[in-house]
């Protein structure tokens, strides 16, 4: 079996349930590597990975870099901010230059939807989408699913509600595709000004009130509410957003069951989520971060064309080193 995911990981929309399950299953044993004193396996030794970040990111970039280093890949970080005028030329030229330097993989973060695919169509290297505009953020979706699966055992029939700015969220899209493919029930909740008008076509339920979402859900994935949404007029104020849509202790206390709380970070404490909830007993926010490294290791590994069965073997073999 070679390249079970194809050349690139651009999004979850076009992956099958089997492919997603394969990534999650591959990630499980890889989690253990990060627990060791020597957090390194030689799996990607000799491979060159470029982390190409056109948009500011701390946690995703670091998570990818840890994943790459723990798989023994050589990594180069390129952080570049491009003005919108020269962006296009930069990306075409960047693609050509990268290719000329004989690299193996590119992890790209870019402010334009479709940028990862744009790059993937122009270079032979594997491309991993680390977030493109408001399109997808597949490794975030995968780590969210791994986190839920580890807590629930299965995603089948589990109710997950994505709360907040779905309109501008690549995390929301990747979550919706991934979760529904693996049999979860998905809902979204937020002000209608921050939901796509065609949201119902995604096959998700829509709650106008967060109280309804809390009554329904087994887990909430709470999205970051960007300050720009207020200045752009999508909502009147962050204060009112917190009062109407904020995930608070009081609201969760009225839930009919314990609800897992996820957040892709970085959090605006006191806006979309209160600290008591973020740091509370049902928060799995830091588990998400931990699982992120394992999921990214799994994606690197699978895109490199390795057979998934070898993941376990590689772990065992190197455990004795």
């Amino acid at each position, binding site marked *: 079996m070679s390249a079970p995911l194809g050349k690139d990981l651009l999004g979850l*929309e076009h992956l099958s349930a089997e492919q997603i399950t394969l990534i999650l299953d591959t990630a499980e044993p890889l989690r253990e590597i990060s627990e060791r004193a020597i957090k390194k396996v030689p799996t990607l030794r000799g491979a060159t990975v470029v982390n190409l970040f056109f948009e500011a990111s701390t946690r995703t970039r670091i998570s990818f870099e840890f994943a790459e280093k723990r798989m023994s890949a050589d990594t180069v970080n390129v952080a570049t901010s491009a003005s*919108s005028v020269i*962006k*296009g*030329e930069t*990306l*075409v030229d960047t693609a050509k230059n990268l290719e000329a330097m004989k690299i193996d993989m590119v992890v790209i973060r*870019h402010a*334009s*939807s*479709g*940028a990862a*695919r*744009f790059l993937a169509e122009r270079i032979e290297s594997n491309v991993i989408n680390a977030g*493109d*505009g*408001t*399109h*997808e953020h597949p490794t975030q979706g995968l780590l969210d699913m791994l986190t839920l699966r580890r807590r629930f055992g299965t995603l089948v029939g589990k109710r997950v509600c994505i709360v907040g700015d779905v309109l501008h969220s*690549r995390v929301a*899209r990747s979550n919706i595709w991934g979760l529904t493919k693996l049999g979860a029930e998905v809902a979204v909740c937020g002000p209608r000004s921050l939901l*796509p*008008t*065609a*949201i119902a*076509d*995604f096959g998700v339920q829509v709650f106008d009130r967060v109280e309804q979402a809390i009554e329904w859900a087994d887990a909430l994935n709470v999205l970051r509410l960007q300050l720009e949404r207020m200045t752009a007029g999508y909502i009147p104020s962050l204060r009112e957003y917190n009062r109407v849509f904020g995930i608070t202790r009081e609201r969760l206390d009225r839930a009919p069951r314990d609800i897992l709380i996820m957040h892709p970070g970085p959090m605006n404490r006191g806006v979309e989520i209160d600290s008591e909830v973020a740091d509370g007993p049902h928060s799995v926010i830091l588990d998400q971060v931990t699982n992120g490294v394992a999921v990214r290791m799994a994606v690197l590994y699978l895109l490199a064309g390795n057979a998934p069965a070898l993941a376990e073997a590689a772990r065992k073999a190197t455990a004795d080193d």
Partner: protein
Amino acid sequence: MTEHRDVLLKGGRLLDPSSNLDGVGDLLIRNGKVEALGGTIGTPDGAEVINCAGQVVSPGFVDVHCHLREPGREDVETILTGARAAAAGGFTAVCAMPNTDPVTDNQAAVGFVLKQGRAANAARVYPIGAISIGQQGERLAEFGEMVHAGAVAVSDDGRPVVSAQLMRTALEYARTFGIPVADHCEEPTLAAGGAMHEGFVSARLGLKGIPAEAEEIMAIRDILLARLTGGHVHLCHMSTKGSVELIRWGKERGIPVTAEACPHHLSLTDAAVEGYNTNAKMNPPLRTAVDVEAVQQAVKDGTIDVIATDHAPHHNDDKQREFSDAPNGIIGLETALAVNVTWLVKSGIISLGTLIERMACAPARLFGLPGGTLRRGTAADITVFDPDQAWTVDPKAFLTKGRNTPYGGRILHGRVGCTLVDGRIVFKTMG
């Protein structure tokens, strides 16, 4: 010399809705005019004979909406290449939109476009003047001087006329000169930042959408202002079901509104954007199947008066970029006939006669241009085409400098064999 050589179009199907003509026969051109038509005509001495058996002989197509990019972006199109591409597409006349650099907003600029068009010696080129100076939407341009210099209409196309008061004034003022005011209908705050039609596809792709209502709000505003002023408003590139319903509403009340639709809005949906295909990015954007069907029906029933190309060449470097940053527009002059035949005629929605009415007769009539007819004594602006010929679209083979088409690689039906302007052959592939 060759200008005055007689041309005999032999044995074609003479199809001209403007004179209720539909029958196989010959057509003789002498001194650039239609000398005789119908039946069998003997070959005059020295005449060039073109065998048109199996071909349709139609009034030349007239495009009331194209972008020829000169002056300003001669790297993507010139009036010469645009006029030649037009001739290759069966157009004997095109109207060039004024969003050039500098803007065609004065008599000197209008004269320049006209001069370049004459020098091209291909399709006729008629300038459209800007509504406002610099297309800034503030002060009216000098319609009178521009019309005197040869402008046939005014438009700020590419930009909507945001101010209702300015649009009102333009419609009132244009009445003096008997020209249409063509508007690009788009409510700018609703459309701001939009890259494609707002719907499920835009939501999935994570692209900011332009709702159908952004077009419809401006369409009904313009219709109401036409009612108020009695001025002729021409609505450019109508793309939504709601828009055609509003136009129908206006026409039923006798309001002087006319409208155009583009071949791409009659054939493709927003699904063509899948994969972030920048050759499917234009403004107004490709809409849904429901909209396409409604606009097709409006072409059939006459709610949409004309089909116009909105030919908009762009450089490959500009289109080869992230979708949201790529410019709007596709080329259309050399595919318009085939797209229309393939999606409208072959599918049984309209007849060839109706297609010729929408592509030749109505545009000439509404914009007050010569042509659009085969009547004896009129200038011989004629297109000969084979409606059945299948061909594969190869963008590299186009005469336009643009390569930005969503139809590349597609097999379409309907191909132009010969285009004549003033009786001169300006394009010919047939034997």
